[in-house]
């Protein structure tokens, strides 16, 4: 077998192990889904009237705000899922089984890649669930073509991969699961400081550049554009650039950390 087939085979084995964990202990996954769903319902049904007025001026109804908030929450769902990734990577590293993997003649990266692929699958699944809740409360894509749907899907996968690699690195540097949860907190806080809930233009001037150029805002604006036909502009390139950059950065960071002598 070539080294590439071996790498693929070991990675598949590791992925199967992670999926088995997720299937057998679904509570972590479900807990992480709760945050975006609760936020969606909270903002639409509790804050909804004020928010709608803020978005579309007086007279705008709630459905306008649902359309506005759902793309942001889909990306927040990814942020929330990767907090779980950081926690489970940190947990996993404290298990003796990882030491065993390190002394076996297997593809070195397979442990981490298994985590990443598993987490991306989990993110996509969570996005589908939150998206379904969105549709159930009235979200509709206005004029998205098949190509735009595919592009939206691709963006979600790429963005998940980016955040997941960074989260895996966070999990690896955390001494325990609690620390990993704290270290990964920016993944759910950043969407709050983006255009997910309110337009960047309504934010204080000094804060606007931060909100505008952090990874979430371009991704949210791109997704909005693809699903709702709003202006994408330079956000498309920014989103892809951020994602690819974070994938590369996270990958090198995480693999370097994993290659170090374990504590």
């Amino acid at each position, binding site marked *: 077998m070539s080294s590439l087939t071996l790498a693929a085979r070991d990675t598949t084995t590791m992925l199967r192990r992670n999926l088995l964990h997720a299937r*057998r202990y679904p509570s972590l996954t479900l807990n992480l889904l709760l945050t975006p769903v609760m936020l969606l319902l909270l903002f639409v049904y509790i804050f909804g009237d004020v928010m709608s007025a803020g978005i579309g001026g007086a007279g705008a109804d709630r459905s306008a705000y649902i359309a506005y908030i759902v793309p942001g929450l889909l990306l927040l769902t990814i942020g929330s899922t990767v907090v779980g990734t950081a926690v489970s990577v940190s947990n996993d590293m404290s298990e003796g089984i990882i030491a065993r993997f*390190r002394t*076996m003649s*297997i593809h070195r990266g397979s442990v981490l890649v298994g985590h990443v692929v598993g987490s991306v699958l989990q993110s996509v699944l969570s996005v589908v669930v939150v998206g379904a809740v969105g549709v159930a409360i009235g979200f509709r894509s206005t004029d998205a073509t098949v190509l735009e749907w595919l592009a939206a899907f691709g963006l979600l996968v790429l963005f998940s991969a980016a955040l997941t690699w960074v989260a895996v690195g966070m999990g690896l540097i955390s001494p325990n699961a609690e620390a990993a949860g704290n270290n990964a907190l920016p993944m759910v806080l950043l969407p709050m400081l983006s255009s997910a809930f309110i337009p960047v233009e309504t934010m204080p001037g000094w804060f606007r550049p931060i909100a505008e150029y952090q990874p979430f805002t371009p991704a949210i604006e791109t997704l909005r554009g693809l699903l709702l036909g709003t202006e994408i502009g330079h956000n498309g390139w920014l989103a892809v650039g951020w994602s690819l950059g974070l994938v590369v950065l996270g990958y090198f960071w995480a693999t370097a950390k994993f290659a170090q002598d374990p504590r």
Partner: protein
Amino acid sequence: MTVTRASAPRAAHAATQAITATGLRKSYGDKTVLDGIDLTVPAGTVFALLGPNGAGKTTAVKILSTLISPGAGSGEIRVGGHDLAADPQKVRAAIGVTGQFSAVDGLITGEENMLLMADLHHLPKREGRRVTAELLERFDLVDAAKKPAAGYSGGMKRRLDIAMTLVGGPRIIFLDEPTTGLDPRSRHTMWGIIRELVADGVTVFLTTQYLEEADELADRIAVLNDGKIAAEGSAEELKRIVPGGHVKLRFTAPDAYRSAASALHEAARDDDALALRIPSDGSQRELRSILDRLDSTGIEADELTVHTPDLDHVFFALTTSAAPGSVPAQHNQPKENAR
């Protein structure tokens, strides 16, 4: 019985060395854990690294099993014929490791753990299932096979751990304190498992803090203390380091005691206990000569015991001076082999 245990290497013909390391070093910050130790383990033998807690045993195993890198200034390390620094993956393919802390995935079942190992060794599906079933049976884990490993007892986890190590059929196995924390029955089961491995020609590198265990299992023993090898040899060789082998004769009648004492003039007398201590290596020849001399004077001892120095004496002699008080206080009674 300690005195009759065979200690010749089981594979004396094996010219190949399974493990060689020269000048093994490791330090963390300014704390030196291993201070240049040399190790040689011939293929097919059991080697025990014996030492108190914190002596550096686990660090040595971690380095030899590629888990952590050797410290700066270490010499060449070869495991299974491969250079550890140049070709760690080849070393990994040759070895199996059961660490001190259970290396099982607690979230999945025992059987799933075994199948995971089979997949990582790239066994065909059918072969993986066969090996899994066979090892679960051999290690008495069939009933627990479908339960999550986190719920296993200490002994069961350790058995699953070793079963997982054996999936790839490694020729060199590292066992880091395989019986620490096990009850006496599980410990004996583990000893049986290790003996079976050796019977199959596997090289075993064992660490332990129990002298009895090294004495029972190992062909060669190295006593590690404070990052250095304090002594190395077979159990018998190590016991020769400390004097103290003797034959003890006890009498109930004071007359017989006095007669014996004059017949065996080299004996140390214990007048209160009516006991004589004759320095001896406990060999058949020396015993016969003592008995012959007693017979010739018509004296009969009420009790004869042979005392051989055991590894405890060696251990205390070698390790107490460096680290007083850090030595485990268990089994400090010499073994008595009544004849």
